[in-house]
């Protein structure tokens, strides 16, 4: 037996614990395992490690220790004898007239006895015109509760070799500065919510209590819907336990809120939740009506309506904000009654704030909600309706007993998707949010504005929690979603009904008109030379239409450099993303054995769906900017190889691939699973290597799906702003970020112009892909049809 075969025996991985005659692993098996392990590795590096860094930053505080030693010249001519900045305190040693060492702590002279001095939180030892040692105490005792989180003080001392040692690490001689990390637990969260007077331990328990109560309430409601779950059989016991837990939870909430000071920061949480809930309600309702109209009636123009519903996918969310500003802003078309030409039209809806954000988010979340509901409505069996009709049920009753239950999983899924998207969106609120604070904008302000990474990380985690909960709930729902359509189902063909068709025709027309308005209003405005003066004072500003804004002269953001850079980034994302996604999906689905490896890879591939773009962006700043990586609990550090990627195009591409990974991955998996399961077995029995079958059969047959995935990556990368806004650099400007910057600077028209450029680029790419797809389908007609 060869060495490889011996090794194969040693490391043979088999599922199941029972005894089994395991096959020898061939070289091919090892190649596949290696590739799947590689997929796991890249996902861990791209998702897990950066997230851990976010948690790390949110729970640690970084303090600066800076040492300034006097030069020889200063020793000869000057009084300066050394300064150490430590955790915000300044310790200065000066030699004053009379050959005396005088110590200043925080600019106040301090009395010294035998070379030792003290100030609140700082203890200094010095001698012979030199600072020898400083101990800085960081603990902030709470005046009310007297409980403190023990934080290790920072100690800096001079070593025998005349070097400085901070904690246990000796500073290299050239360094003046060192960053020290200290664990502060949930102190950042306390600051954010204005919690005072409670210990971290008790808060933690209180939160766990609340979460447990929520989970159990959810579970209880769930069992009500599905009474077959055995837990609900002992009804009284269930209710009793639940009541106890709910009371406890209320007590915990009361306890926490009583210690909370009204903090403007925490208002964001509530605001974001409101945005999420209102948007979800409106968006899902509209999407349902629209999908119902398309699938269940015989109204006119269905093809047109389908296309219009997809258009918002091509645009960055800032576009809707800008369109709304032009319509409902202070100088908006409708606010001013079309500049007083139609005063009866004037309607001020107080755009900036919740209203504007919700409207923009409704447009943004409409396409995904619509698609999910359309698929759900399509998967019904006409025979159920025939049965209901023949048994004499009214239309209303049929609706509630047949239609709603058959789409309940799609409905829930649409709700979770709409909530997550609107809760975490950054673009539209940035443009049209005004003073209405939401979490996404808070993160941006903390990181870009205040450079407070710890707080940025904290708010990111707060943003993550509802998102992850919604994600988990969606996964649970999906797991329970059983196939409604069986092989014997009959597809539903709607009957004509004048009244109903007209009704839905009108509704869908209104919705479609609104979508088109939202997308193209900004486009129209981008062609107006000076808004609104070209309309209100035509004598002074005679020229109405212009392409000037499309030249991006005299505006920041990067202009066409940013645009083409975005194109490049999106193209790279599309190519690399489609390749990685499809290959990973293939390996995970079609490799036999090594079940735990494949399951881990699958699980890791699903996680990115739970991550908002902002969190990815901020996590990447932390992880990829580090120069050192350390293995926890061992103190071993090594150079961070991924640091090379920071500030390059590569990190933008990687963040985009991760951001949009899950949807692509699931698309790929679905396409692969539609192939005959025995292709691989046939190829195996003929000793054809797996990659040959992959290239000759799998890829060509799945080509339409691969193209879909590539286009999805491209379009999403062009329009996204949340992840890249933290990762772009001046060498790598981006179109979507340029929009934000131009809008910030008040250059609304060029911002709108850039948005339209993004939309055009996406529409062109999509149309090209459609053409390619059609040609491909025609050319391969021979083997596609019967």
């Amino acid at each position, binding site marked *: 037996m060869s060495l490889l075969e011996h090794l194969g025996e040693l490391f043979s991985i088999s599922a199941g614990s029972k005894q089994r005659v395991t096959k020898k692993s061939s070289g091919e098996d090892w190649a596949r395992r290696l590739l799947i392990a590689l997929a796991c590795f890249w996902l861990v590096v791209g998702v897990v490690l950066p997230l851990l860094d976010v948690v790390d930053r949110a729970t640690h505080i970084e303090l600066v220790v800076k040492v300034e030693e006097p030069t020889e010249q200063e020793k000869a001519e000057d009084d300066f004898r050394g300064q150490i900045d430590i955790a915000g305190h300044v310790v200065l040693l000066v030699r004053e007239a009379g050959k005396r060492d005088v110590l200043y702590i925080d600019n106040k002279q301090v009395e010294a006895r035998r070379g030792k001095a003290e100030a609140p939180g700082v203890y200094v030892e010095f001698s012979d015109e030199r600072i020898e040692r400083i101990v800085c105490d960081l603990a902030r005792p709470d005046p009310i509760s007297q409980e403190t989180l023990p934080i290790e003080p920072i100690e800096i001392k001079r070593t025998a070799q005349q070097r400085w040692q901070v904690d246990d690490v000796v500073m290299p001689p050239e360094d003046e500065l060192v960053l020290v990390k200290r664990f502060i637990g949930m102190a950042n969260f306390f600051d954010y919510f204005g919690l005072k007077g409670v210990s971290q331990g008790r808060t933690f328990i209180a939160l766990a209590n609340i979460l447990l109560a929520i989970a159990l309430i959810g579970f209880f409601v769930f069992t009500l819907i599905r009474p077959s779950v055995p837990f609900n059989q002992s009804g009284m016991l269930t209710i009793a336990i639940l009541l106890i837990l709910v009371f406890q939870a209320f007590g915990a909430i009361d306890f926490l809120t009583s210690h909370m000071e009204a903090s403007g920061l925490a208002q964001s949480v509530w605001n974001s939740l409101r945005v999420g809930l209102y948007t979800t309600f409106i968006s899902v309702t509209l999407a349902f009506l629209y999908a119902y109209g398309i699938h269940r009636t015989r109204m006119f123009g269905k093809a047109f309506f389908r296309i219009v519903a997809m258009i918002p996918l091509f645009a960055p969310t800032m576009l809707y904000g800008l369109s709304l500003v032009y319509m409902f802003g202070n100088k908006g078309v409708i606010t001013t009654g079309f500049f007083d030409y139609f005063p009866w039209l004037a309607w001020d809806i107080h755009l900036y704030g919740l209203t504007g954000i919700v409207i923009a988010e409704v447009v943004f979340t409409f396409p995904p909600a619509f698609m999910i509901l359309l698929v759900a409505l399509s998967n019904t069996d006409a025979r159920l309706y025939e049965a209901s009709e023949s048994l004499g049920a009214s239309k209303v009753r049929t609706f509630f007993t047949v239609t709603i239950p058959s789409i309940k999983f799609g409905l829930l899924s649409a709700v979770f998707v709409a909530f997550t998207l609107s809760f975490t969106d950054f673009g539209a609120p940035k443009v049209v949010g005004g003073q209405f604070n939401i979490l996404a904008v808070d993160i941006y302000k903390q990181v870009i504005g205040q450079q407070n990474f710890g707080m940025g990380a904290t708010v990111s985690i707060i943003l993550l929690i509802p998102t992850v909960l919604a994600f988990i709930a969606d996964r649970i729902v999906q797991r329970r979603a059983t196939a409604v359509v069986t092989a014997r189902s009959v597809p539903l063909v709607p009957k004509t009904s004048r009244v109903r068709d007209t009704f839905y025709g009108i509704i869908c027309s209104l919705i479609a008109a609104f979508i088109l308005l939202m997308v193209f209003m900004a486009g129209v405005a981008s062609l107006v030379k000076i808004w609104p003066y070209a309309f209100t004072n035509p004598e002074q500003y005679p020229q109405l239409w212009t392409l000037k804004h499309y030249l991006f002269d005299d505006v920041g953001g990067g202009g066409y450099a940013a645009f083409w850079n975005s194109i490049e980034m999106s193209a790279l994302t599309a190519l690399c993303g489609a390749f990685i996604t499809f290959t990973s999906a293939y390996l995970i689905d079609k490799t036999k054995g090594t079940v735990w490896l494949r399951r881990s890879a699958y699980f890791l591939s699903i996680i990115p769906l739970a991550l908002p773009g902002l969190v990815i962006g901020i996590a990447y700043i932390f992880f990829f900017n580090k120069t050192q990586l350390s293995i926890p609990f061992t103190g071993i550090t090594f150079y961070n190889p991924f640091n090379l990627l920071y500030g390059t195009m590569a990190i933008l591409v990687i963040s985009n691939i991760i951001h949009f990974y899950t949807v692509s991955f699931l698309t790929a998996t679905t396409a692969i699973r539609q192939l005959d399961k*025995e292709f691989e077995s046939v190829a195996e029995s003929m000793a054809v290597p797996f990659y040959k079958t992959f290239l000759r059969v799998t890829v060509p047959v799945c080509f339409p799906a691969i193209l879909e995935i590539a286009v999805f990556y491209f379009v999403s990368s062009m329009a996204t702003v949340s992840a890249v806004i933290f990762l772009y650099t001046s060498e790598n400007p981006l179109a979507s970020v340029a929009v934000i910057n131009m809008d910030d600077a008040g250059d609304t028209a060029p911002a709108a112009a850039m948005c339209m450029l993004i939309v055009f680029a996406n529409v062109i790419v999509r149309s090209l892909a459609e053409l390619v797809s059609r040609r491909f389908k025609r050319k391969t007609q021979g083997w596609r049809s019967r």
Partner: protein
Amino acid sequence: MDRNSEINNNEYFLEVRDITKMFGQFKALSDISVGIRQGEFVSVLGPSGCGKTTLLRVIAGLEEQNSGSVWIGGHDVSREPVANRHLGIVFQSYALFPNINIIGNVQYGINRRQFSKEQREQRAMEMLELVGIEEQAHKYPAQLSGGQQQRVALARALAPSPSILLLDEPLSALDARVRVYLRSEIRRIQETLGVTTLMVTHDQEEALTMADRVVVMDEGMLMQYATPHELYVSPANTFVAGFIGEMNFINECMGRDPDSIFFGQYILKLKPGRVIKYQGRPVVVTIRPEDIRVIRDESVNFNILKTKVERIEFRGSLYTLRLRVMHEAGGSTDQRLNMDLQVETMESMNIRTQMELPIHLPPERLLLFKHQRELM
């Protein structure tokens, strides 16, 4: 691994020994041992869920057995991956590559390093001619009918000259007419090439008409392994007896002496000595519908049952009578028998329903089994 035990000189080309396969707690295969000679065509027959496909997949190497070994050409291949076993497999769904044309599909498995492009094409065309669809060589699978696709799958599996051909329910997706035609085609091709073949099916007519020997399985266990004739004439247990062809079961019997049994108040004689081991014990006695005789003359005076004709079914080439056995003294029992009767006999005897019909059970046609669980 003991080199000596690897080589095994015996008559079987393909052999499985004591194969056991579990899926979790479910035992799919229990100690299956089967030997197939070179060039033989063996069918694995059984009801759904009996483990026949699992057995085929274990032989192929697509599933791993929990214990037992697989031997090909005298070598233990239990631990070899599929690619090293030199098999051709035809699946129920054919699994033809949709984007490659027919001749491309057939060429797929031929070794590229060993044979040049021309040699591969030539071989592929040979195979297509063998299965009779050389005209479709440049079409795509989706343009072919089910039967044609099946033949392409067969050609593809045979093109690399495998030493063993495995067929997993190859005909079950086709309609009846095509199936009958393809049965003889497959057998013809197999005989022409002389390739050792194992075919899994749930259709007994297929198994009995195509195979040299048949493995009958039920619930993961080997029920009988014999030629079709032996299975029909000498089934080894009540399962095989009832599964192959039609069979009458007379359940409430008791062994009487080495030659005869009690059936209610009737005494039935069997082949001499057949009942030796079962005297005084409950047994099941069976007889084929075509073996029950009407009584033409008075010379037959034993093994006679009184019956009443309950229903007459016309089957084209014969009649089947549903009979209800009566007590000798009158009054009906619960025992029913099916009897096949030639058309002429029916007409000459003018048999009608509700008629009393004494029948004779020839002792040499009666089979005896231990009293086991009920057969459906």
